[in-house]
């Protein structure tokens, strides 16, 4: 920061503020907040929805309340025991807390006594409010076997850690208008997805080519005007004014109104009618119109039913399925509200038609909401409660109710049913509604990958469609989504990660805000229409409201305000004063035609904190920073005092945000707190990312998640199915500030290596690396690999059970005595035993799955079969730990962890933090390596060709910075935008007698000659990636074949062959190497001899009893000849036969022919 003027707030001041934010919120706040809200608000609400369960004719069950217990495990003996997450992981249990309901049954005899029943076991999110871990100190966490750095935010289901991935969705209850596709019959569309309390329904309004508007809902297409009439807007004038006050738009509504007139009853008022009569007639007509409209709809739902029922059905349909977010109660007010909402949709649509507004941008983040763990869980629980719980209670009471006995619900309601369904969804990731992959196994490669996984966001768009716009970086992603971190390939741009500073709203109820808006002068819509009508009748040309701003609350028009700017400013002022929730955002959008105020209070908006600027001066003052630093103030205090506020994408459209204090002008409204926080977790560890070509940062963001490090401090107490840890992980010499808060310095995943850029022997072409054997000997990049083998001793119905023991030689599938020799008496290997592929780790015998024919006939003495757990083919290691316990059902559970030392070898993959990856191409003895005059020998030599085309200048700077850091003895700050200047680093190098270019003269270790060109050498942080040769190396000469086709198996785990594919085959064909081709495709694969009858061409067989070849047609009279074919071909013939096709092979003896 030497080059920038020291204007307050300096980067250091701003960093203090930003750091406070992370310290307070942690990095998985969004999930924790969402889950906490689910527990404290949503769950009570859901249970409230089922408050009264009617059992027709008998009784009703009333829910009085509920409580959530502590996380427990239920032993089969029946008692409950408190459980720690670690125990759950080890014993394949679920970390869940019981939810108890207090119920009472109300019959005509009055209310029975309250009963408490167990509703379900609710999975507990780690470190959430109901998790005891959240209240523990560091030492207590350690005592409980937890890594104190573990972020929490995930669940433990059947022993495996599961994340509920945040789902990005189009904002519900918001109207989006767009042009219709060319091929459809419509020209323009307005869509809204209305979601409320688990109900979801879509309403589309389309404008046909003839200018008539239609609404479609639940596959039903209704003319818009009729729909509005059915909702209670009975007169043309009401409908017109509800849609718009603007005559031009009203004109565009005419075709729809004219069309609808055909179904409406004629309305004539006798000239001489008295006012009373007139009123009565009007009222009568109103009712008639509504009924006619309802009937129009009813005809389409309840086909062939009487008129009265049709109308009723139509009403119910509209109440329940139309715009459920406005309400589902059957009151005229709610219907009217719906009508107004639809009118606004029509208005917006017509504005688009008139070119007054542009189609809505679906990729703008104002139109997107995130569904986090709490929302997803709520969806799940609500779904199963609605579908099973209610029915269960009803059935239970219907079946067991008696006049004389109290019904004991505890006996009748099985909690397992609900629990199992919820757990099943969470274990498989299949959510009700057909979404898959919602819950995923938490990535534990290293801390980065874990955190990044917890902050992942997926978009529901199909990955096999292009969706170009959705995948592209949208400007509103700034500060919300990481611009770098996204996978390559099919999912690019659809799977994203939250930026560091992003913060997801949990939502405040509309009811808290709506009255306040009216108090601020918003005129409710109903009044507006009434007054507008009056004004027109009084002879105004336009009602004055035309110039007023429309005010929307969460996408719903609630009224008009004379001055949108003023309203927005007042709301902001109230928010800054802390008088309304800081979660409320307001945006004022004005163009020539559009004049709208949007107030948002809903959940799932991605918001980011910004410093408030007034008159070109940030409201943050030095004493605030001091207070933050001393801990007197928290980050929330800044929000409460109106110094910092969170903006959503909507409100950000109104903001003018400065990057740095030097850029501030009086027009600015906000300033970034910490610009580098626009990056996500993994992109934040890249030093100098602003000097790299963008895709390189994307590559690195993906690779950081594969690098080995210390994934959890309790790794020895965990039993992960696979795991790696690096032996001597180092803090990077070249740091970014974000590492501090991510915890990268405590759980690093890489080592600082001396890297020279030169070709040296050329064994580093095409991104290969040359490594120094001396460095490897000294422990560079060593790692340990764990693999878990586990089995359960099951008990089967019918008294059969598994046994963990050393199998005796008479079991089926016995592997020979050698395979079992490492087993202890109890049938399990001892720790610290070296094992290799094929060695049995846990000896187990199971009852046979199929009986052989012999066993059927003999009956007695069924042989058991070997079900031992064997070390994987091609792997080796040392037994690290053995654990014997019981699982949730009380079965014996054995887990064996095997570890394997991984010393870098030819082919292991490494990568710098700049997307420069490569595999070891050569390991050079120390004495042969090039050296500098100081005797520095590089650990790694990379090829200069790695740079020009990739343009990863960041790595070159890191190399120099690393060298300077080593010379100075302290780390160098390489935070993007606020880094230590490169000039300073060069001065440092020069001060220590090194050329500032980073180049040094080097000598070839083999000859001792000086290398004529100076070599660029410095220190770069390299990561060892988990792709290692030891896991992949594979060859086969002979081996197992598939049973069906008799062709060699595929894949390393099955000791498979290497595929000789069609392109390879084409080569041999092209060369005319026919014998080689035959050998490859036939002899080395599935060659078989079949016997074909010369007379009929059918396949025959050899009858061993009679010693004769038999033809299926000619029996033993056939002339059967051996023919060499592929077994797959024989299979084809037989398959054809099964299709009633008779294939015949015409064979002839070649020798006889000649």
């Amino acid at each position, binding site marked *: 920061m030497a080059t920038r003027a020291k204007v307050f707030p300096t980067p250091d001041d701003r960093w203090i503020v930003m750091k406070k934010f992370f310290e307070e919120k942690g990095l998985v706040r969004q999930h924790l907040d969402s889950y906490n809200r689910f527990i404290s608000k949503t769950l009570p609400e859901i249970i409230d929805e089922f408050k009264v369960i009617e059992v027709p004719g008998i009784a009703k069950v009333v829910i009085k309340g509920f409580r959530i217990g502590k996380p427990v495990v239920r032993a089969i003996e029946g008692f409950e025991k408190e459980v720690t997450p670690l125990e759950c992981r080890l014993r394949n249990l679920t970390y869940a807390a019981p939810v108890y309901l207090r119920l009472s049954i109300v019959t005509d005899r009055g209310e029975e006594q309250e009963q408490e029943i167990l509703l379900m076991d609710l999975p507990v999110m780690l470190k959430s409010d109901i998790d005891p871990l959240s209240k523990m100190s560091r030492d207590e966490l350690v005592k409980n076997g937890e890594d104190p750095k573990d972020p929490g935010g995930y669940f433990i289901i059947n022993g495996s850690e599961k994340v509920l991935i945040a789902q990005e969705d189009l904002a519900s209850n918001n109207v989006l208008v767009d042009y219709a596709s060319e091929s459809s019959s419509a020209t323009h569309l307005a869509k809204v997805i209305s979601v409320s309390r688990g109900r979801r329904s879509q309403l589309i309004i389309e404008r046909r080519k003839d200018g008539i508007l239609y609404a479609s809902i639940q596959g039903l297409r209704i003319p818009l005007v009729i729909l509005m009439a059915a909702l209670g807007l009975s007169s043309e004038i009401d409908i017109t004014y509800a849609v718009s006050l603007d005559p031009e738009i009203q004109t565009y509504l005419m075709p729809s109104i004219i069309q609808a007139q055909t179904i409406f009853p004629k309305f004539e008022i006798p000239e001489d009618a008295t006012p009373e009569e007139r009123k009565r007639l009007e009222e009568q007509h109103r009712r008639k119109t509504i009924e006619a409209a309802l009937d129009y709809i009813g005809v389409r739902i309840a086909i062939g039913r009487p008129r009265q029922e049709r109308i009723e059905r139509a009403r119910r349909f509209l109440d329940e399925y139309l715009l459920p977010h406005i309400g589902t109660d059957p009151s005229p007010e709610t219907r009217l509200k719906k009508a107004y909402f639809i009118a606004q949709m029509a208005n917006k649509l017509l504005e688009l038609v008139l070119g007054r507004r542009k189609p809505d941008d679906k990729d703008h983040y104002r139109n997107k909401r995130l569904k986090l763990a709490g929302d997803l869980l709520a969806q799940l629980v609500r779904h199963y409660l609605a579908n099973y719980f209610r029915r269960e209670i009803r059935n239970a009471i219907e079946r067991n109710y008696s006049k004389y006995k109290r019904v004991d619900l505890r006996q009748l309601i099985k909690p397992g049913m609900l629990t199992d369904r919820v757990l099943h969804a969470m274990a498989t990731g299949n959510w009700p509604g057909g979404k898959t992959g919602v819950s995923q196994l938490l990535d534990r490669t290293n801390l980065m990958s874990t955190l990044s996984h917890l902050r992942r966001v997926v978009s529901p768009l199909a990955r096999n469609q292009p969706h170009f716009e959705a995948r592209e970086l949208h400007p509103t992603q700034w500060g919300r989504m990481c611009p770098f971190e996204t996978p390559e390939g099919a999912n690019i741009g659809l799977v994203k990660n939250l930026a560091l500073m992003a913060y997801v709203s949990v939502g405040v109820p509309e009811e808290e805000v709506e009255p306040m808006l009216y108090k601020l002068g918003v005129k409710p819509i109903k009044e507006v229409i009434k007054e507008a009508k009056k004004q027109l009748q009084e002879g105004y040309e336009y009602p004055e409201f035309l110039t007023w701003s429309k005010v929307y609350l969460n996408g719903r028009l609630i009224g008009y305000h004379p001055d949108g700017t003023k309203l927005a400013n007042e709301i902001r002022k109230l928010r800054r004063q802390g008088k309304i929730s800081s979660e409320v955002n307001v945006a004022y959008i004005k163009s020539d035609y559009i004049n709208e105020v949007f107030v948002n209070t809903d959940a799932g908006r991605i918001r980011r904190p910004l410093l408030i600027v007034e008159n070109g001066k940030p409201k943050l003052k030095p004493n605030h920073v001091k207070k933050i630093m001393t801990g007197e103030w928290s980050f929330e205090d800044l929000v409460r005092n109106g110094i910092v506020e969170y903006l959503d994408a909507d409100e950000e459209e109104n903001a003018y945000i400065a990057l740095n204090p030097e850029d501030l002008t009086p027009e600015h409204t906000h300033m970034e707190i910490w610009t580098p926080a626009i990056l996500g977790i993994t992109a934040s560890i890249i030093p100098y990312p602003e000097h790299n070509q963008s895709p390189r940062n994307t590559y690195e963001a993906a690779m950081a998640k594969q690098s080995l490090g210390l994934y959890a401090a309790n790794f020895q107490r965990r039993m992960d199915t696979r795991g790696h840890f690096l032996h001597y992980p180092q803090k990077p010499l070249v740091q970014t500030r974000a590492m501090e808060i991510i915890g990268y310095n405590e759980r690093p995943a890489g080592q600082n290596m001396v890297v020279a850029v030169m070709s040296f022997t050329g064994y580093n072409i095409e991104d290969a690396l040359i490594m120094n054997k001396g460095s490897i000997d000294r422990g560079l990049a060593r790692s340990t690999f764990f693999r878990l083998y586990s089995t359960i001793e099951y008990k089967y119905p019918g008294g059969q059970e598994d046994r963990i023991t050393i199998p005796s030689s008479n079991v089926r599938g016995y592997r020979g005595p050698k395979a079992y020799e490492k087993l202890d008496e109890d049938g399990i290997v001892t720790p610290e035993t070296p094992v290799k592929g094929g060695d049995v780790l846990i000896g187990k015998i199971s009852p046979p799955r199929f009986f052989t024919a012999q066993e059927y006939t003999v009956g007695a003495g069924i042989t058991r079969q070997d079900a031992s757990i064997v070390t994987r083919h091609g792997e080796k290691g040392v037994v690290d730990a053995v654990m014997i316990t019981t699982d949730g059902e009380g079965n014996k559970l054995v887990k064996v962890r095997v570890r394997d030392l991984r010393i870098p070898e030819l082919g292991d993959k490494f990568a710098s933090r700049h997307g420069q990856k490569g595999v070891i191409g050569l390991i050079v003895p120390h*004495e042969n390596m090039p050296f500098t005059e100081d005797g520095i020998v590089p650990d790694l030599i990379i090829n200069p060709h790695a740079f020009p085309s990739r343009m990863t200048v960041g790595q070159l700077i890191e190399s120099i910075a690393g060298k300077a850091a080593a010379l100075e003895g302290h780390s160098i700050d390489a935070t993007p935008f606020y880094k230590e200047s490169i000039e300073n680093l060069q001065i440092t190098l020069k001060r220590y007698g090194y050329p500032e270019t980073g*180049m040094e003269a080097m000598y070839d270790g083999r000859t001792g000659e000086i290398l004529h060109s100076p070599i660029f050498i410095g220190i770069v942080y390299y990561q060892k990636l988990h792709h290692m040769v030891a896991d992949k190396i594979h060859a086969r000469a002979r081996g197992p074949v598939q049973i069906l086709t008799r062709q060699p198996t595929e894949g390393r785990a099955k000791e498979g062959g290497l595929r000789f594919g069609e392109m390879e085959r084409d080569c041999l064909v092209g060369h005319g190497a026919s014998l080689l081709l035959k050998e490859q495709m036939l002899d080395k694969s599935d060659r078989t001899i079949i016997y074909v009858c010369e007379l009929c061409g059918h396949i025959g067989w050899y009858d061993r009893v009679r010693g004769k070849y038999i033809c299926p047609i000619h029996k033993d009279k056939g002339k059967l000849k051996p023919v060499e074919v592929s077994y797959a071909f024989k299979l084809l013939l037989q398959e054809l036969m099964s299709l009633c096709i008779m294939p015949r092979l015409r064979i002839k003896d070649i020798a006889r022919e000649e």
Partner: protein
Amino acid sequence: MYLEIRILEKSSNRVKLYLKDIPLHVLNSIRRTMIADVPTMAIDTVVFTVNSTIFYDEYIAHRLGLIPLTSEAALEKYKPPEECREASERGLFTEDCFVKLDLEGENPPSSNSIITLYSGDLRTSDPDVKPVYDKIPIAILSPGQMISFEAYARLGRGREHAKWSPVSVAAHKFIADISIDNEKCRAPDCTDCINVCPRNILIIDNDRVKVSSDRIFDCSLCKVCEEACKYRAIKINWRKDEYILLVETTGALSPKRVLLEAIKVLESKLDSLVESLKMEGITK
């Protein structure tokens, strides 16, 4: 013929020599021999009886191997690496090959501090072979953890594993021969080369760029001055058969000993070549 040798720098484990008239291939052979062929003692096999620390056996064994052991006396006392290597592979820890170092440590479960075991805690069977430094941490014991092992050290060569390499630094450098073309040079209007030189080799003297003769050994031949000169007036070259050799040992052997041993190893290699030639009857 004698070489000209000057000692530029000397300390217990570091020496810098100036050598003149030595051919490069000879010097480099010596350098390479120092790294790869001079034998030292290092722990090769570790037998664990107890290890409940968080470090794995192979992890601790690797750490033990890298602890430098004093080897001055050991070179005479013990059999050469080639013979001992076989013995170790067969698991025969004979006294003429191996030195036993053992360590026992326990942190009682009741304690609430952490114990670190250092190289100085190793008990050796031969006082001549002991860790050079006492403060190299081996393992950390938390309460309730225990460790006990016997480690066997033998002579070995850096070629086999870097732990047997007696030197951490063995490097030579060339000595610069800087020529300045005064015709082309624009000094004193231009001082680019002087400004960029990180070692302050160049000075301005009488409005001319000069090489400060007492600092010439410091020139790193980085050619930055050459790059900086817009007029191609300065040229970096090097003197023939004049070198500086820098040796820094791990402490197992003194620099002097390393150098002499290296020469001895080279000599014996040449001797055995002569022997072989004789045996083949090629020479008399």
